[in-house]
């Protein structure tokens, strides 16, 4: 096996190990034997229900959300020719946050909150893209990023206003809780919907994996090589946005994964998107699963994973940056 194959195998092995471990820790530990029992149908009703209704969805949600955020981050970093870009650059998370905050403000229905977050994420990127592509006198990428930043700030201030106006005893904590991210209350059907949407976003990325490399070149060069950059960029933005919005709708805001994981993966397999994407997804899934497992076992109250990713992510990122001799 070559070193690249080894990297995939190790990452997949770590993810598998973490999955078994994640079931094994917590208030109701599920041993690997119990897990096997669920597969064969020999487990007790109690074990069945914990695995299928409670821990299973949560573990799967961590895997799906982590993989989706890392995939979107990989695509965005290549496309924006900038390794410091995260999936939030065009406002998908802020839009989703505003959607969720508005929904919490007016209702109590979780499904409405999720749908509103999803729609908010798509709408924010749609707006940024629409405005950005109208600023024709400037470099298209710069126009997009700049529009993303200013519209993100605008949406952020509307969220602040909603928090200011929200009932401080029940609505405000709910908004704050959502903004910190959590996988604690993901229901099986929410997870299934998010997973399907994320796969829909993943498909074009996989199919266009070679051309996405060419998109990382300066615009003139990519076009002189035969790539319709405007069309391809629109498609990649749509795919990455769909993945991110689907993930954020069930998890709330979870930072760092989309920024950090593509870096780590690129250091191992290089920037070629066809090799980067699978490793990014494996590492993203493993990272978020580890963080979520820690977040529910560290103390009697859950540490929000959105906080833990930053607590773990910051030193890890700096260490990686200091360690990396070669450029991205």
């Amino acid at each position, binding site marked *: 096996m070559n070193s690249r194959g080894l990297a995939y195998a190790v990452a997949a092995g770590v993810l598998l190990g973490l999955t078994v471990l994640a079931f094994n820790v917590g208030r109701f530990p599920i041993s690997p034997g119990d897990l096997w029992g669920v597969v064969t149908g020999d487990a007790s009703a109690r074990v069945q229900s914990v695995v299928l209704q409670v821990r299973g969805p949560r573990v799967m949600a961590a895997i799906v959300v982590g993989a989706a955020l890392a995939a979107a981050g990989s695509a965005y970093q*290549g496309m924006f*020719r900038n390794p410091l870009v995260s999936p939030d650059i065009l406002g998908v998370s802020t839009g989703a946050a505003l959607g969720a905050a508005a929904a919490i403000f007016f209702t109590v229905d979780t499904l409405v909150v999720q749908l509103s977050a999803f729609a908010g994420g798509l709408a924010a990127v749609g707006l940024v893209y629409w405005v950005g592509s109208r600023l024709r006198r400037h470099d298209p990428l710069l126009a997009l990023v700049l529009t993303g930043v200013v519209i993100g700030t605008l949406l952020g201030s509307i969220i602040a206003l909603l928090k200011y106006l929200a009932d401080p005893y029940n609505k405000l904590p709910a908004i704050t809780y959502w903004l910190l991210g959590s996988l604690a209350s993901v229901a099986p059907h929410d997870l299934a919907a998010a997973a399907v949407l994320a796969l829909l976003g993943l498909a074009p990325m996989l199919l266009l994996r*070679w051309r996405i490399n060419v998109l*990382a*070149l300066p615009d003139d060069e990519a076009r*002189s*090589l*035969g790539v319709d950059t405007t069309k391809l960029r629109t498609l990649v933005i749509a795919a990455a946005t769909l993945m991110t919005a689907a993930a954020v709708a069930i998890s709330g805001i979870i930072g760092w994964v989309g920024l950090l994981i593509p870096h780590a993966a690129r250091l191992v397999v290089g920037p*070629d998107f066809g090799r980067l994407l699978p490793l990014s997804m494996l590492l993203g899934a493993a990272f978020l699963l580890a963080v979520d497992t820690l977040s529910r076992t560290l103390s009697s109250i859950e540490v929000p994973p959105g906080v833990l990713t930053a607590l773990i992510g910051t030193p890890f990122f700096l260490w990686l940056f200091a360690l990396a001799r070669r*450029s991205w």
Partner: protein
Amino acid sequence: MPAGNRKLVMLKARSLAFGFPGRTVGRDVAFGLAAGEVMCVLGPNGGGKTTLFRTLLGLLPRQAGSIELNGEALESLARTRIARLAGYVPQGHAAYFAYTVLEFVLMGRTSHLGVYAVPGRQDREVAERVLESLNISHLAARPVTEISGGERQLALVGRALAQEPSLLVLDEPTSGLDYGNQVRVLERISRLAESGIAVLFSSHDPDHAFLCAQQVLLLAEGRALALGPPADVINAQTLERLYGVSVRVLAVEGGGHTCLPALRP
């Protein structure tokens, strides 16, 4: 290329005007470039050389006139078709990510691939052959971010050659190269033309036109000052008008010319 043969005109421009929205950079440019021929564009900084090249490649919409590539109107050609006909070597490349030189050259194969395809064995063979012809096979596994400027220039040429084009457009291919590498690039240009490729390149050194071009286009303030064989076009008067300095053009014993600027006291 035997003289007198009817050569295929690869690139033809007629009363071309080019520039940016609201700003015309150049106008009334006309020329024809045949297969196996080398044309050098000379002109001062900001004279419109890069803008002309970008327009000729369809990267910038033209403002007036017409462009024909391989006998077809440029605007009727799809991006992938243009990419299969014309390779572009831009002026320097800012490398953002550490693609290997081989991967970088393979990107030149994109226009030969289906939309969802990745480069296959044949593409790899083309890329490896190109690296070999440029004597940079040893760089294949090196990241483009870690090689020297001259090596990156060669990698850019390699990427354009991997397109297997009939026309090669090089924007100041010798800029930033040491003397030896400049000569090597000019040798490469001559050899590519011998293999039947039409080559269009720009330079800041009139000697480069003498060394390897059959035609030279002098571009000043957006207009074609002169067009023709270097020996007819490059002289003290035209260089004075082009660059505002006085230069003597000397015939060299054994054939050829060279330019010698006269420094004012």
